[in-house]
């Protein structure tokens, strides 16, 4: 009896162990790369939820069709969801094989060693020499490449031709004095207020830094070692523009990028500084708009360029890395870039695409031209602390009436403490 009981116990234990083992194997199988028979599936996360999303999907489908041994399994999600999920997912081993993110954010992740250094890819890949130098530089952190450009988006000024004509203004402003006076002329209160410009300061592509740069100031110096937010040039730029917003009502205070887009689309704002992704929406909304370079500042003529780059999960196997590099080559191939640029308005990541090849979308040439005076917004590994937690609240306080000089000086001290 006792013997048979032990036997039964052993059998049960074996069954449980077997089931657990099977479950583990099953779990591992589902977690491990699908690389059976030489076929590789790569998960790819990004936040291309905007008008460029369908083009990205179509190009990924084309890659999957033309590369039978590789499947890109793409998940498109809102950017805030993306940034919330990415690091915990990478830490727990369930992160994507490839991800695309704004290069502003890249240093924070590179510092945590979650992405594979791509210096060797740049050395052996035949096509990387044709990539725009500015875009490639934006993916470099302390001399190491961590990304490959997905898109390259210099900002331009969108201006509403109908509202300009109503205000008897012939064309877009060329310099700051015209820009400021036009913004005042185009603003009025009343039952249906109108703003000269929709100038977002939070949850947006950075626009205020352009104003600081063009006046000879900035947030940090070029080597990201020193805060320059309290420099006379930075203070002067913020004083001039905040005065126009608070006293002359040229723009609503403290708005998000989405609010600014809504105002321009609803023709309640006559100007907006934005990237090429906005062209599709404004065209569909039948806004009669034009594109012009950001007006020249007193000290410099400069705009911001937004670069999104793809990176590879540092834990990926050699086979997966090779497959990811094949996808990068496809993405930055000339034909793909022409297709992407023509359908989305983004500037090609390559410099060897001619104007004739882009003639189907004349706006691309305008953005390409704007890119000649464009720099990326780089704050290093302290991006969130400097931009989101210090600079943005400072400008919000100023627009709410706080004194410019002392607010910027206090923010500058805070930024310096992050830079060390």
């Amino acid at each position, binding site marked *: 009896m006792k013997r048979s009981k032990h036997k039964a116990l052993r059998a049960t234990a074996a069954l449980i162990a077997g089931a657990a083992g099977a479950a583990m194997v099953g779990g591992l199988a589902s977690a491990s790369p699908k690389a059976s028979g030489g076929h590789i599936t790569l998960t790819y996360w990004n936040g291309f939820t905007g008008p460029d999303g369908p083009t990205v999907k179509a190009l990924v489908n084309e890659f999957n069709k033309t590369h039978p041994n590789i499947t890109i399994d793409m998940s498109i999600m809102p950017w805030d969801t993306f940034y919330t999920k990415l*690091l915990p997912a990478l830490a727990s081993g369930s992160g994507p094989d490839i991800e695309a993110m704004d290069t502003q954010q890249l240093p924070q992740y590179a510092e945590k060693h979650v992405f594979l250094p791509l210096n060797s890819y740049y050395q052996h890949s035949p096509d990387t020499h044709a990539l725009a130098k500015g875009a490639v530089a934006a993916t470099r952190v302390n001399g190491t490449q961590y990304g490959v450009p997905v898109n390259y988006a210099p900002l331009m000024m969108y201006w509403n031709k109908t509202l300009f004509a109503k205000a008897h203004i012939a064309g877009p402003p060329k310099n700051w004095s015209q820009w400021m006076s036009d913004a005042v002329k185009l603003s009025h209160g009343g039952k249906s207020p109108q703003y000269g410009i929709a100038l977002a300061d939070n949850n947006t592509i950075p626009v205020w830094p352009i104003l600081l740069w063009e006046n000879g100031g900035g947030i940090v110096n070029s080597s990201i070692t020193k805060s320059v937010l309290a420099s006379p040039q930075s203070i002067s730029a913020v004083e001039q523009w905040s005065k126009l917003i608070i006293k002359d009502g040229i723009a609503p*205070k*403290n708005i998000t990028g989405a609010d600014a887009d809504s*105002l321009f689309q609803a023709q309640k704002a006559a100007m907006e500084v934005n990237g090429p992704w906005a062209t599709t929406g404004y065209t569909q909304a039948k806004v009669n708009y034009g594109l012009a370079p950001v007006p020249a500042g007193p000290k410099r003529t400069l705009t911001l360029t937004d670069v999104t780059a793809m990176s590879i999960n540092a834990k990926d196997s050699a086979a997966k890395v090779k497959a990811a590099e094949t996808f990068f080559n496809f993405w930055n191939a000339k034909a793909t870039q022409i297709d992407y640029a023509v359908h989305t308005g983004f500037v090609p990541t390559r410099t060897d695409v001619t104007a004739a090849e882009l003639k189907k979308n004349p706006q691309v040439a305008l953005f390409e031209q704007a890119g000649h005076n464009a720099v990326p917004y780089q704050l290093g590994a302290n991006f969130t602390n400097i931009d*989101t937690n210090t600079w943005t*609240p*400072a400008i919000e306080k100023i627009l709410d009436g706080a004194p410019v000089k002392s607010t910027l000086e206090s923010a500058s001290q805070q930024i310096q403490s992050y830079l060390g």
Partner: protein
Amino acid sequence: MATRTLKSRLWYPWATKQRRRRTRVAYLFMAPSLIVLGVFMFYPLVRAGWLSLTNYSFFGASRFIGLSNYGHLVHDPQFWRDLVNTLYYAGVVTPVSVALALGLALLLNRKGLPGRGLFRAAIFLPAVVSFAVSAIVFRFMFTPSIGFLTYWLGQIGIHVPDWLDSVSLAMPAVILVGIWKNVGFYMVIFIAGLQTIPKELYEAASIDGATRWRRFSNVTVPLLSNTTMFVTVIALIASLQAFDQIYVMTQGGPAFSTETLVMLIYRQGFTNFQMGYASAIAYVLMAIVLMLSLLQLKFFSKRVVRY
């Protein structure tokens, strides 16, 4: 005690066996709930307590740092700023929503009030709508120039300021949504409480010549004290944990003017990836909630009346 147990076991061994069996069955029935509570409540609670004593940040080795996170918190101006914001939010939302819910319950508990059912349903409706959805609607209503409130009121000459973009008005805007969302739920609880008060007490008070105010203050308020205690405690807990509508409407801005402690926990944990520090703030918030709830229980338990 031990002697008594031994005695009962000796005298009634069958009773002990039966009791044991009953206990086993009771635990079996409780097991599903206990497992869920254990996995989703107690384990995270203990784990967060441990994390608050470490410098865990998703990556790199996690190190035990004792009470350093709590020490850092005491000197962190962000914590004090967000504690003030949280107390401001809870200090307005809790009394206003409880008082408003009580008033509405008294009004809608009257028999013969035309459209009573419709009003009850309309006021309760926000309680069943997701907080995030409500917040999206309100955000749209407050959008400058093209929002529902800002645009249409502007058309009749009333200029509504940009509430969500103003450091001083953003908090009142999220408070408004907090009250609107919860008042219906608290009202239903008050109506249920009002319906348990025997009519005879009101009749007796009327015969004694009590005015409407005296009937309210001497009959309704004391007999509703248990319900009031319950509503006030859950209202305060919900207010101290405000997150959803703030995250959707303002993301804690402008200039952190609407950032509450739960928003700070989220920001430290999921934006700055300082999970150890975020856990320490969570534990302090839990201590605050516990302390205030106990104070409320003490305050109300002295005022409970039974006739």
